[in-house]
């Protein structure tokens, strides 16, 4: 039963609305599509995530400054989750009913999985890091990189080439050292099967707690077990510190160290430990190092919107640009198909699956792979090497093997 007080309140609001007239901007019919980034600006992986989020925000500013597309601009909503699922869910709840919200980017697989039931219910799409499970089980979650196991498998191919180039006989022995969490184990979910397929002996993974200051125990075990190559996971400066310890132990003389997408950066680890990192290999699904610091669009946006020197750039800025460029490309397809009125998460879901085979990122990534049967951002990776305090490309883009399909995901 409604009380008199409640009724009076409703009537009051009603009167206020009538007196106030139309909402500001109502008559102008501003057309905005929304992008929600559940990122990390002050938490444990802010060093990486913040640069990525800045890339997203800057590309959308640039797109909007150019007038958008068919009068539609993009509103970027960045949320600092501090890498916390509870904060991410709270933020998602706050924004989920925003009209024309098309996509939600989650900074970790855990966050993505936590909000996924709501993504389905709200008919949105989700972008998430490189867990191959999202390729194995097709859904509304799109991987924003080349899956980790595919990148690892491409590195195994590089290892075989390098081994032969050096005139070595027999099969090389490869080890993995990474964080003791699902991310750290992911390269082996398909990567292990791929190694068997091409005749590489893989050692058991050496996993350590995030935050470890020294890595001697795990490195010594890899060396004792005969590793010729070691793949290092984490987020820089983790990889830098692992390789720094390996250098101090004298292991970098005989073992080739390699890292994944989040490895040594010219703005982070390479700056502090160029000598120790010399010769290390980095596999990546977006440009980094000297490529990043000379990319026309990326450097222009960095200087225009961040007002900083290119020397301060962190490569992860480019994965953010890639997210935003894919979003804009998808939005254009959705707008062409149904106009602004029908621009919603479902339209974007359909549009993302039509991005296959397109060059959308001005060379920041390889060709886009999203399709009805692919949730991979791209199949392509590029190899870099630390040389004289710089990260320089040593290959062009090359297609990574499909390691995801080799693994049985429960």
């Amino acid at each position, binding site marked *: 039963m*409604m009380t008199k007080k*409640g009724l009076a*309140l*409703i009537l009051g*609001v*009603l009167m206020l*609305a*009538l007196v*106030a*007239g*139309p*909402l500001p901007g*109502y*008559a102008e019919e501003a057309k905005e599509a929304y992008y929600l980034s559940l990122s990390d*600006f*002050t*938490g*444990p*992986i*802010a*060093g990486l995530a913040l640069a990525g989020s800045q890339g997203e925000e800057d590309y959308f500013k640039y797109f909007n400054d150019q007038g958008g597309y068919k009068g539609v601009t993009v509103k970027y909503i960045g949320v*600092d*989750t*501090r*890498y*916390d*699922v*509870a*904060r*991410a*869910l*709270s*933020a998602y*709840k*706050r924004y989920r009913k925003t009209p024309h919200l098309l996509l939600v980017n989650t900074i970790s697989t855990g966050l993505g999985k*936590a909000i996924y*039931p*709501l993504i389905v*219910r709200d008919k949105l799409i989700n972008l998430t890091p490189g867990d191959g499970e999202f390729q194995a089980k097709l859904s509304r979650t799109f991987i924003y990189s080349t899956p980790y196991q595919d990148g690892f498998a491409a590195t195994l191919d590089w290892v075989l080439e390098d081994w032969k180039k050096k005139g070595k006989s027999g099969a090389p022995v490869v080890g993995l050292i990474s964080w003791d969490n699902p991310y750290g184990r992911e390269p082996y979910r398909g990567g292990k099967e791929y190694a068997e397929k091409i005749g590489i002996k893989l050692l058991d993974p050496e996993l350590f707690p*995030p*935050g*470890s*200051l020294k890595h001697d125990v795990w490195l010594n075990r890899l060396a004792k077990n005969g590793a010729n190559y070691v793949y290092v996971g984490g*987020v820089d*400066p*983790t990889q830098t*510190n692992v390789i720094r310890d390996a250098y101090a132990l004298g292991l970098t003389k005989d073992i080739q160290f390699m890292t994944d997408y989040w490895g040594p950066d010219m703005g*982070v680890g390479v700056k502090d430990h160029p000598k120790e990192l010399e010769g290390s290999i980095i596999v990546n699904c977006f440009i980094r190092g000297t490529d990043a610091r000379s990319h026309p669009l990326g450097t222009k946006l960095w200087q225009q919107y961040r007002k900083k020197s290119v020397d301060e750039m962190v490569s992860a800025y480019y994965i953010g640009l890639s997210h935003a460029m894919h979003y804009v490309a998808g939005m254009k397809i959705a707008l062409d198909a149904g106009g602004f009125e029908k621009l919603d998460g479902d339209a974007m879901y359909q549009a993302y699956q039509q991005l296959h085979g397109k060059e959308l990122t001005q060379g920041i990534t390889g060709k886009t792979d999203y399709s009805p049967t692919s949730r991979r951002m791209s199949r392509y990776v590029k190899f870099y090497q630390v040389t004289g305090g710089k990260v320089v490309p040593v290959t062009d883009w090359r297609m990574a093997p499909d390691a995801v399909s080799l693994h049985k995901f429960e």
Partner: protein
Amino acid sequence: MNTYRKTSGSIFLAMAVLALALGGYVNAQAADLQIAPDQAAITPALLKAPIVFKGSGFTPKEIIVVEMVIPKGVQVKGVQEGENVGLANGNADEAGKFETKMGAMATLNTLFQVGWTPLIKPDFSKASPLPPGQYEILATGVESDSVGKAMLTILPPPPPEKK
């Protein structure tokens, strides 16, 4: 033409407000929330024995988001003024009940408000713990919009032990 547009816009807005108000009034379900303990000092003990949230009166199987209402004047790292901060999440069971605890990340990020080192380690030297006081906690069912409310009291830190 312009007047007609403004007037029709106003009527539309007013009707929408009325519908929302009445809809909210009719649908608002009383959910229940309990916090254990409902009084706590911010000490490392909270990492070993985290705060537990229990509730009932939700739609079966729905996701529950537990949030703290940040009082005016209180700063929480990463949270903008006027926003609530997530503390925990859970799922209602078949009977619409849920139980969940505050995770270590939420305890570190929101109660201790630690900094983080580049090596993913909490940095207590940069911590700015939530000030003592009374905080309203909301548990919201994301399907039903049912809300359970309770108060959490943050106590002043205990005096340091004498050596």
